[in-house]
């Protein structure tokens, strides 16, 4: 079911990519996404492909893990591809009724699909090689300047990190509640929209109550371990740029220029 979601899952191996500073990886992901939107030639996509393949090889994460995230966007992918295929004006290849397949459409759809797939794989590379804590640390530090305008950056990143930890737990819990209610004859599938919405009540009430209970428990446990906000906290894994990070930034620069120039 929903368990398939790869985004936000960490794949624990030791690689250069794993050891990179999370800020470097965040920035790199941004550069990669930007490059996908700048690229408009086959050659540019070639460069992006080479870059992505190299990064994946460096990460030591099996390729099958990278593509798993694609399942989640399959529907989106199909829709955008078919829109582009049939609704782009240009030289006609053939037509079925009012649907017209054009060379331009084919090209646009191809790029669109590549862009989406690369985007998901690219961000999976980051989440698979960076623990959620590192990720939130990276965000916290790179967004630190927002603190000055009153944005509670530490608190937000702590919330994100906790949310990431509890998502799989709550997903599993949803599954258990559904089964417990199905054992009492509940039906979550049939009926019209109103009936379906109503049938969610026996699922949502226990889920919310459990989430609240977990939240109170967790708050108490955090307090018991002396948590009192970001002030006066030290870091177990403070962020330091190493030489590999500077090399990383250099690689991004070269890559970006290459995509633009080609």
């Amino acid at each position, binding site marked *: 079911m929903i368990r398939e979601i790869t985004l936000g899952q*960490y794949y*624990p191996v030791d690689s250069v990519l794993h050891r990179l500073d999370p800020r470097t990886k965040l920035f790199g992901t941004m550069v990669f996404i930007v490059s996908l939107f700048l690229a408009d030639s086959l050659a540019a996509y070639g460069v992006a492909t080479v870059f992505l393949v190299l990064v994946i090889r460096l990460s030591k994460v099996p390729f099958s893990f990278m593509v798993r995230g694609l399942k989640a966007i399959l529907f989106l992918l199909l829709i955008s591809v078919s829109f582009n295929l049939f609704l782009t004006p240009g030289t006609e290849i053939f037509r079925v009724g009012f649907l017209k397949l054009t060379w331009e459409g084919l090209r646009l759809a191809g790029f669109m699909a590549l862009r989406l797939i690369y985007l998901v794989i690219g961000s999976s590379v980051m989440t698979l090689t960076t*623990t*959620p*804590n590192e990720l939130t640390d990276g965000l916290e530090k790179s967004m630190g300047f927002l603190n000055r305008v009153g944005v509670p950056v530490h608190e937000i990143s702590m919330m994100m*990190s*906790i949310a*990431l*930890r509890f998502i*799989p*737990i709550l997903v599993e819990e949803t599954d258990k509640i559904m089964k417990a209610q199905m054992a009492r004859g509940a039906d979550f599938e049939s009926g019209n929209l109103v009936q379906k919405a109503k049938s969610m009540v026996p699922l949502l009430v226990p889920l919310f109550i459990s989430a609240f*209970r*977990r939240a109170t*428990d*967790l708050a*108490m*446990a*955090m*307090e*018991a*371990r*002396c*948590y*009192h906000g970001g002030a*006066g*906290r*030290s*870091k*177990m*894994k*403070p962020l330091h740029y190493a030489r590999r990070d500077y090399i990383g930034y250099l690689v991004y620069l070269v890559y970006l220029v290459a995509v633009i120039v080609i």
Partner: protein
Amino acid sequence: MGIIKASRLIYDYIRRDEEDHVEEVNRAIDGLELDIKAGDFVAILGHNGSGKSTFAKQVNGILLPTEGTVWISGMKTTDENHIWDIRKTAGMVFQNPDNQIIGNVVEEDVGFGPENLGVPTEEIWRRVDESLEAVGMTAYRLKSPNKLSGGQKQRVAIAGVMAMKPQCIILDEPTAMLDPNGRTEVIRTIHELNRKEGITVLLITHYMEEVIWADRVIVMDDGHLVMDGTPREIFSQVKELKGYRLDVPQVTELAYELKKEGVELPDGILTIEELIEHLLPVLQSAGAKAVKDS
């Protein structure tokens, strides 16, 4: 004064209606007197609702007394200047293993407490290494907590407390949600910490098998301390224990039942070995009836 001391401790749960008027007052602890010696392994027994968990939360200042005083290493829990000292002196492990692990990776969770205390980075790593080693979870340090068994999660939670260098650990029914293997694993770990590191342990439970090796057993009922002694002293009073909705291990019960029928056995037998040691001579000397296997 011992490491934990409570004097005339009273705690009321107060329920208020929307206008903040007191609707219901529930006295969870009622005049508790208690003094716990540093280095002891103390078990607190009591049925659900006896006030034992409320007491646990008093010890590290999560709840503060309605009346009376609790001291941890001489510090009053009501003294706001010392609240973080108190929480790091008396660390707490809760019942639900999932709801107390904050980190997404085992070692990061163990480092959470020291981070909050502002411990320097290198020292955090040293403490994380030591704590994981002490609970035997070093091999799992890079794992996600979601991939661990219940017993392993509780050991991570214990390591998280150990990393704050406490003098005392309070465990509030740490095994209630575990299977028998997980239970043994957690109890063995806390006994080791008590023995090797000299940590004072306050174990709250209602599994009788878990308390037979404690130095001292306290029974709570209705917010009062009703029994206090060594496991042997406590377990020789089977009838009283049952009156407090508790139970005894099967061997203790068998010995107690036999003794009631006039069989000569000492009070408060706790283990299979003890029962055999005392019952065997009785059976053998009974002669003819206890025939040898041919």
